[in-house]
């Protein structure tokens, strides 16, 4: 489901060449990409999402060979096969939470099927933010925004979910609650959590630590 082998990346002509460790995971796996600041966590996440192109190596995510895919193929693939929970919840501010959650379907299929709306209702209900469905993003608290962000990443049933520092700004109790939500809601997907949060290092058996000397 996710395969990284011999991947190297360099920002521009002058930037340092980063080498990332090899790893892979199967459908339904949970894994942690652990590393301190400056170890290239965000760069690797962007490589895995097809937002950056590696100069060398093999990057295959959800059946898509990322180094050879065209930009158009990557755009569609991201909308259909990937779910991304960003460290800071981004939303389209002019749309309601409900509309934001439906946006991936609209962008990839040109419409929002009725069953997606049903699924959205039950997911928002499970996450405790059903009453905020019609609200604008800025009207939600940080915690509500993060839960909405998780719902958006999972609503279209992606094969792989990437979560970028989902617990960095949370206390122990809330960090655990958010990870429980992610585990539960992304039960059918491969979940890759990118974090520097040492509290999570024992959560999953499959953990890859990024080495600063490699970046």
């Amino acid at each position, binding site marked *: 489901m996710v395969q990284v082998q011999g991947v190297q990346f360099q920002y521009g002509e002058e930037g340092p060449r980063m080498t990332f460790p090899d790893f892979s995971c199967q459908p339904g796996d949970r894994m942690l990409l652990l590393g301190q600041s400056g170890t290239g966590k965000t760069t690797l996440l962007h490589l895995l999402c097809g937002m950056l192109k590696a100069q060398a190596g093999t990057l295959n995510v959800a059946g898509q060979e990322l180094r050879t895919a065209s930009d158009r193929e990557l755009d569609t693939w991201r909308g259909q096969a990937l779910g991304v929970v960003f460290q800071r919840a981004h939303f389209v501010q002019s749309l309601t939470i409900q509309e934001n959650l*439906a946006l991936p379907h609209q962008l990839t299929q040109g419409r929002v099927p009725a069953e997606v709306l049903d699924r959205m209702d039950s997911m928002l209900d499970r996450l405790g933010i059903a009453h905020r469905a019609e609200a604008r993003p800025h009207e939600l608290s940080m915690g509500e925004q993060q839960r909405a962000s998780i719902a958006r990443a999972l609503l279209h049933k992606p094969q792989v979910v990437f979560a970028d520092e989902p617990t960095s700004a949370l206390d122990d109790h809330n960090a655990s609650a958010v990870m429980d939500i992610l585990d539960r809601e992304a039960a059918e997907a491969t979940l890759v959590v990118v974090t520097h949060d040492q509290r999570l290092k024992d959560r999953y058996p499959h953990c890859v630590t990024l080495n600063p000397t490699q970046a």
Partner: protein
Amino acid sequence: MKLSLLHQAWRNLRAKPLQTALSLALLGFGVGMVSLMLLTEKQVNDAFERNIKDIDLVLGAKGSPLQLILANVYHIDAPTGNINQRAAEKVLKHPYIDSGIPLAYGDNHEGYRIVGTEHSYVAHYGATLAEGQLWEAPYEVTAGARVAENLGLKIGDTFFSAHGLKDQTDIHTNKTFTVVGILEPSGSVVDQLLLTPMESIWYVHMEDGEVMDPEAREITAMLLKKRNPLAVLTIPNTLRDTNMQVALPAIEVNRMTQQFGLGTSALRAIAMLIMALSFASIFISVLDNIRARRHELALMRTMGGTPGTLYRLLLLEGGLLSVAGTALGLVLSRVGMTVLSQVVEAQFHYDVAAMGVLGSEWALAGAAILVGLLASAIPARRSLRLDISRTLSEA
């Protein structure tokens, strides 16, 4: 759930009400001013064209030729004076002149001119009777459609005339005019006139028992139709030693509209400047949207949006502004035309309130929408080069 690109564009515009309102107001005023000028020009030109209708020369007292035309063809100015009827009839008998219609006036009723003339005046403008008959005896009046409607005149109504063309102070209470007919609307100047025999105008100013010398009878003007084109050159020479002149409506009106045109050119330049500012406003609005919403745009790329999707979204926002601003402009010009028509109606009794969309206005609207789209298309190109990774890392 409505989530099409058009819907998203609309929601994005609504999310920035002040910026959107400014762009709309600028484009609305620019388009509105140009549209109002097009409408006004069309209405004025149509009114001038309709009333010139086969009148080649106007014979009247010496003075401003333009005033002679405005007073006797359009009835929107004071006459230059009176001329002797016998002298005018001599001009009418000139071999180069085909026919003529005499006009005598100087009184009004409730601001509407009472014009002494012949039945040929009504026939000249193709007016027909709605009810009653044309005047026959002195003090009988056939009312134009607009006068009858505005004053509520009916067959058999009577009224006194007042001296002057608008004044209501010096009323001739010894002579009563009776309405004997009402004309159908003709779209010409007769709609706003009270028509009567020439004798009515002469007699109303005479004391009881006074006898008028036929040689001393005066008229205000004579509308002439030429038989020979040389009349335009010959007739003025024959009038050199008289108190009369002939003026050519086509030339005078053309001269006037050219002077009028200088003013409208200046106004049009101002309107174009406002429109240019509005396009700059749309340009800045889209550019500002790209800067302020770059994280949203990058986010849409991570959710399956292509660069083309983002480009179309931004283009739609500019397009919506252009279409709405243009529509607002056309509505504003109609409001302006309604106000203007009320002023013109009150001042000159002319109806200029036609509200149909002119061909030139469709062209104006098309051009405004096209330029508006272009003004948004240029900055929207930035969305095609959006670096998703860097933009999201900056957040």
